[in-house]
């Protein structure tokens, strides 16, 4: 009796079931790499290479996590990523919100020209300018410094996207409040600080999330400009777990990679609506 019901149920919902099965199969290449990375990082070197492969470690080992800190100044490198990404985020918030607001509201000569010039670089790969950037930073004695690592993304395409998001958002805010404030004698700076910034909170959150992630994951610029392991950011540090022949020390590399990815994933899972919306913002062009 029960089986017959189950059979009916399956027949009635065949489409829905097929869709979920399809989604789960498609999800495999998206999800399995994370699973394999995290579980393998807790395996001993022998277990990593054992056959048949195991979906979970036989015994959970912390040895990889301990030697991550022995082989490189990983704490320092983690901190480098935290503070450069934070600095980039704050400077981007300041520059992009000011510029975005001005482009949307203030009328000044050459506004459209300047806007077009900046926006035209939105899709330019940073690989195009990396060689002059390196030569330039070398002249300024900023190789192995975090200053270019912090500032380049602020003004590169990520920063332009941020200014663009702010401009589009401000265009959607009604002007009445600002006009009333102007009549009451508030200056433009006052309006920006006391009226526009609070109203533009969703845009600012999006800008903050996008710039932080972009900077956290930045690779080319640090790769070219930094060669002192003390100054490495995380993406560079992950490459450092190799044996003297340049072959990866998989256990350590996966443990370090897990430590760089999991904090971001946890924040993402809790704030996933904000994160996803931020990226949707950047797609509205």
């Amino acid at each position, binding site marked *: 009796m029960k089986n017959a019901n189950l059979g009916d149920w399956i027949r009635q919902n065949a489409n829905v079931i097929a869709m979920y099965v399809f*989604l789960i199969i498609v*999800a495999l290449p*998206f*999800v*399995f*790499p994370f699973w*394999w*990375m995290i579980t393998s990082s807790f395996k001993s070197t022998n277990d990593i*290479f054992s*056959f*048949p*492969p195991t979906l979970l470690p036989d015994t959970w080992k912390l040895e990889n996590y301990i030697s991550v800190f022995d082989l490189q100044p990983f704490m320092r490198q983690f901190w480098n990523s935290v503070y450069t990404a934070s600095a980039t985020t704050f400077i981007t918030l*300041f520059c*992009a919100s*000011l*510029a975005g*607001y*001005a482009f949307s509201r*203030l*009328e*000044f000569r050459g*506004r459209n020209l*300047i806007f077009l010039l900046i926006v035209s670089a939105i*899709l*330019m*790969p*940073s*690989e*195009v*300018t*990396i*060689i*002059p950037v*390196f*030569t*330039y930073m070398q002249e300024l004695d900023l190789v192995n410094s975090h200053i270019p690592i912090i*500032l380049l993304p602020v*003004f*590169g395409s990520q*920063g332009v996207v941020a*200014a663009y998001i702010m401009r589009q958002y401000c265009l959607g805010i009604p002007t009445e409040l600002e006009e009333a404030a102007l009549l009451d004698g508030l*200056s*433009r*700076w006052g309006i*920006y600080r006391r009226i526009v910034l609070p109203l533009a909170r969703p845009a600012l959150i999006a800008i903050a999330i996008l710039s932080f992630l972009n900077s*956290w*994951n930045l690779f*080319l610029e640090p790769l070219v400009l930094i060669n002192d392991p003390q100054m490495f950011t995380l*993406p560079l540090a*992950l490459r450092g777990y190799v044996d003297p022949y340049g072959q990866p020390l*998989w256990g350590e590399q*996966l443990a370090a990679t897990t430590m*760089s*990815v999991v904090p971001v*994933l946890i924040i*993402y*899972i809790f704030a*996933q609506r904000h994160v996803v919306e931020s*990226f949707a913002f950047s*797609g509205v062009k």
Partner: protein
Amino acid sequence: MLDVTAEPRTEPNFWQRLNLRQKDQIFGYLFVAPQTIGFLLFVLVPLVMVFVFATQHRNLLAGTVEPAGFANFERMLNDDPFFDTVLRNSLVFATGLVPINIAIALTLSIILTRQMRGAIIFRTLFFAPVITSAVAWAIVWRFLLQGDQGINAFLELVGIDGPNWLREPNWAMFSVIFSRAIKGVGLNMIILMAALQNIPEDYNDAAAVDGANAFQRARFITIPLIMPTLMLVVLITLIGSLKAFDHILLMTQGGPGNATNVLVYYIYFQGFRIFQTGYASSLAVILFAITMTATLVQWLLRRRFSYEER
């Protein structure tokens, strides 16, 4: 900052004599100054420099600079046996990645836009690779694609002898394309979902009443309506595929042989591995030209499609 309104009424100074429009002119320049000056210093100046560098013989290690005219470009066309390979690889990479990415992203976005249980969970999963660093993603995929471990170990369990993914030229190209495509699907998916949510539901309902099946509805109603967004997504993905430097460096270093050596990787190789920064700059000029052409073409197409949409 410039809060002069609180001052006692005496002789009006320069600032007080300006009207609102004139003040806005000044504030406008002040407000865009940080972003614009930064842009000039960090983007525009290097961009001009790359064109200058491209006409020079430069060696980063020796620090030598000599005028070269168009010698770098002549070398590219006539004397560099790798240039053709690199361009062809970039083309294969892009034409492989874009359809894989768009096909998956479009399918997922259509499915997940419908009211279904668990849509948020699936969206969260499909989007997770987007926020993961390209370096981490490439490291894990390289680990998964080792000769006899990871994916191949699982394939062996079911009796399939998997290829040595990253050591055989064609499989290596396929592997870097596929893993990179997967990383970007989530972004396109949510951009497309945002566009799909703007389609009035009665369009689809009406078609369903008229007997159109799911594929027909997608083909004749949904896709034409989101065409402008789809074009944008294709362009972003195309240009993004030209930037897969980190992915290539970590997974294959352009190998085996030059099988996965794409333009961005070749620029890095010439500039920072063998220090030919002049020649590398001329390659960067080519990359710039390709990106700008793609942007322009998309912009023209978009105007046409957007017009039809109205």
